């Protein structure tokens, strides 16, 4: 599953040991450039920078990055085409500036998606969640999100196992059987999630959990050269775009 592949890429990335705040700064700068600068050449530069950083210094597998970026591409293509089709009395046709608008829309969205994917494939969620505390998100909410992240993988494994067992019993051999199997599968996953939560609660209560799920996050110190890159790269893209215009 691509979700696991992105998470695995994040854990295995050469940037795993870098400060999540530094990486957030870099990706926020790139996303800001994709959103605010003219698509040509701004979005192209952002997209190239995000892909080059991911596949180069961050050492994200090209296959993982390519497979993950496919998902938003379908929405971007359909959405952009729909946006530039004109509906009038004479029927359906292209808007006067269709090619330019579609190019701009696709450019921004692909560049923005690549910048977010750079963050996703280099930073595990467990590193990002503590950053939410710095944005004044309540501790209880961050804890719920942390439990959600950890349980997602447990439940996905259960989902895969149950689905495999259902498929072996011809449970997905026709649409009618597929729906019945999907309902049983969803119910089994839900009851397992409750059961897991209850067992974890019993275990934690036995260890004296009273004030929340405190864990010691990895110390990932900020790097001045990386922060300089995070500031310089969007600035350089902005300057190049403005000069080229």
């Amino acid at each position: 599953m691509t979700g696991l592949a992105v998470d695995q890429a994040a854990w295995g990335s050469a940037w795993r040991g870098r400060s999540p705040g530094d990486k957030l700064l870099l990706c926020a700068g790139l996303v800001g450039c994709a959103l605010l600068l003219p698509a040509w050449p701004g979005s192209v530069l952002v997209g190239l920078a995000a892909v080059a950083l991911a596949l180069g210094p961050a050492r994200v597998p090209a296959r993982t990055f390519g497979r993950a970026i496919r998902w938003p591409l379908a929405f971007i293509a359909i959405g952009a085409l729909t946006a530039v089709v004109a509906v009038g009395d004479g029927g359906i046709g292209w808007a006067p500036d269709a090619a330019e608008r579609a190019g701009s829309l696709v450019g921004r969205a692909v560049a923005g998606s690549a910048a977010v994917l750079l963050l996703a494939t280099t930073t595990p969620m467990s590193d990002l969640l503590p950053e939410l505390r710095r944005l004044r998100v309540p501790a209880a909410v961050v804890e719920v999100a942390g439990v959600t992240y950890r349980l997602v993988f447990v439940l996905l494994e259960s989902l895969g196992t149950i689905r495999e067992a259902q498929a072996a019993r011809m449970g997905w051999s026709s649409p009618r059987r597929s729906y019945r199997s999907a309902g049983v599968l969803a119910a089994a996953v839900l009851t397992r999630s409750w059961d897991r939560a209850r067992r974890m609660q019993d275990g934690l209560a036995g260890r004296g959990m009273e004030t929340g799920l405190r864990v010691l996050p990895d110390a990932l110190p900020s790097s001045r050269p990386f922060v300089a890159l995070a500031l310089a790269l969007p600035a350089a893209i902005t300057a190049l775009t403005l000069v080229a215009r």
Partner: protein
Amino acid sequence: MHIAEGFLPAGHALGWTLAAAPFVAHGARAVVKEVRENPEATLLLGAAGAFTFVLSAIKLPSVTGSSSHPTGTGPGAILFRPPVMALLGTVVLLFQALLLAHGGLTTLGANAFAFAVVGPWAGYGAYRLTRAAGAGLLPAVFTGVALADLATYVTTSLQLALAFPDASTGLAGALAKFLGVFAVTQIPLAIGEGLLGVLLFRVLTVNARPELERLGVLQPAAVPATTGGAA
């Protein structure tokens, strides 16, 4: 149908984030209060969030011959109520953006407004109205889950139409375009997820009745009156 990163203009992305913020903040306050009074709720709420995420990984057969994925917010709204789903839905959308590359960070507010606010409230409202009209649990679940999907799809289409109005027919023409294009996948998905909701709740009423009673979805079964005297 998540709006991809960078697809909305900056002003629209900010506007939808501000529109979703009060609902998500309300959900966060509800969660903080629940966790303060009841520390074990952290784990149950985390499990609910994980279930919503995983539900979107179940493939449903589609009329087009391919497959589609449920949104998961309809059953969540019936089980855990819309305020909690506003927060959990936003957390799930954040995870989908960063684990699956579905959606984005600047479009998180717009997606949260459609998926985590409008969908759950519309679905829960339809569920409660159907129950109040005297319908049983399963017809109400179908109505609620299908309508949560449809409301999400209409809201996303409206968000796109506001961002990209048609050159000649304006907002109305753009809304018709986006509704028409995405109807091919979203209307069958709404019906499919409604059916999935019925099958899910049918199994739960048998296998997890105490949990449904605790969540207020089912009334506790009446204890049979004992006849006096020993046989």
